[in-house]
């Protein structure tokens, strides 16, 4: 079997859906962040697949895009962990469904 663009795209879509499901269903804030990370890497996989099978110009912009996504995701997770730490200090829990001071 020849592995073509479709295979990568389907894998990317599956990973994206799994990540999305994790982000929605996890109660632990860190778990949600892991789900988001999976979604972002699904996007990266999709982009890299386009880079492999596209023209030289597409390859360049997709690869630049991927590098930016990796860098920004790291920044986002850093802030996310810092906020999770503050929440933990205040509440002794980082469970998303038990931080319900604000609702309604």
């Amino acid at each position, binding site marked *: 079997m020849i592995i073509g663009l479709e295979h990568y795209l389907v894998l990317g879509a599956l990973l994206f859906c799994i990540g999305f499901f994790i982000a929605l269903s996890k109660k632990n804030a860190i778990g949600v962040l892991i789900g988001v990370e999976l979604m972002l890497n699904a996007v990266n996989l999709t982009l890299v697949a386009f880079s492999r099978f596209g023209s030289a110009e*597409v390859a360049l912009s997709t690869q630049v895009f991927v590098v930016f996504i990796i860098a920004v995701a790291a920044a986002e997770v850093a802030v996310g962990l810092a906020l999770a730490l503050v929440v933990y200090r*205040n509440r002794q829990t980082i469970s998303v469904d038990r931080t319900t001071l604000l609702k309604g």
Partner: protein
Amino acid sequence: MLSDVNLLGPELVLLVVGGFLLIADLFIKDRRLLMGTTLAALLGSILYSAVLLTEGHVGSQGFGGVHVVDKFAIFFQILLAGAAMAAVLVSTETMQRTPSRRGEYLALILFSTAGLQLLAGSRDLIMIFIALELTSISQYILVGFYKDRWGSEGGLKYLLTGAVASAVLLYGMAILLGLTGSTNLSEIASYIAWQGDGKEDALILAAVFLIAGFGFKAAVAPFQMWAPDAYTGAPTPIAAYLSVASKAAAFAILIRVFFEALGDDLLAEHWKTIFAVLATISMFVGNFFAIRQNNIKRMLAYSSVAQAGTLMIGLAAISADRGELLGASGILFYLAGYTVTNLAAFTVIVLIANQNGGSYDIRKYAGLGKKSPWLSIVLAFALISLIGLPPTAVFFGKIYLFETAVQSGLAWLAVIGTVNTLISAAYYLRPVKAMFIDTAEDEADETSMPRPSNSVLATMGLVTAGVLVIGLHPGLLINAAEAAVSAIFS
């Protein structure tokens, strides 16, 4: 290359001063000096935009078409910097609460504003993503700035939902990039025009992901769940800033992406349906949840969701009737009017909380009409303006948008908009009733009223004057809005 940097001037001023503030924070302890520097940077950014406008740089693209300086971008750059100035000016109390982190606070406001300004001028998917994240990450920190229970919870919820939204946005961008082979908006547009036949389904899928990502920033239902929590937890000046600046920039990029890159006539028919549905959901969800709130910040959060729905009417109308400048300039006019009015409301709320012992409970507003008549009158004026009663900024904006909707065959949407305006009166008038009709239960603490700071009072005067000026002389702003949108729809 140097001329490209020149085009980024308004944003660079903010980024450089922001970086300087982070360092200066270590040895400058004077609050006024720090705030003055921040305000000077924002003013410098506005002036830089004005210089770019007058010196014939309009229409020039920088860095290989990634960034553009057109009247549309300049309109938003000035609006956003103005909103940030108001937020900084009302931050005196916030800065007294966090004396050791003043520089950080101001720097983050500058970074966030620079991100939003970049967003308004982006013409490239990668650039849009970077600008969006620059502003989002700064805002996550600002929302949790107090590090108390409410702030950290609001910040974490904002971050988690925001991270999911940006991942969804990125997936949409990846699909779009794979389909069209370009990240540049005008190249995407020309690809769709020449080879777009038969790819509508995939393009619509990508667009839905994009709408989810941008709709999150604009707090359009059903992507609004972060707004009430973030507004309640955030320092009030930041809540004010989020409610106006994020929304304005999100609508700017929605207009740019959907009418510059994806504005093909065949596709626009689909955007009409999507935007009309989102407008309806957003108005009803925002208004119904707003009625139930007792905290005025939460109430204004849901009201901002409803206002985003009203703005969506404009997007649906321009999708239905391409080349119609009236709808797009209506959105810009409404955004500017709403920005000024909402800032007025939030400024008074800061002042009232200052006197009420930090309370945002609407029930505690009882009898305020007697205690501090001026504040009550200004708040009542701002809230009545938000309903859209004449002759105020929001009134003309609504007339503008509903008129365009009717003209482009979306009369039903205008009817829903009108019904929702009536519903919104129910909660906008509640604080007014509390202030002027209800009587306070305890009149004991009348002596302990701290004097409000001059900068907050001055901001209140300025934005209230702004609401009146736009309401009485809408022509000036209408001309500016029309000039701005002619850059996109030409």
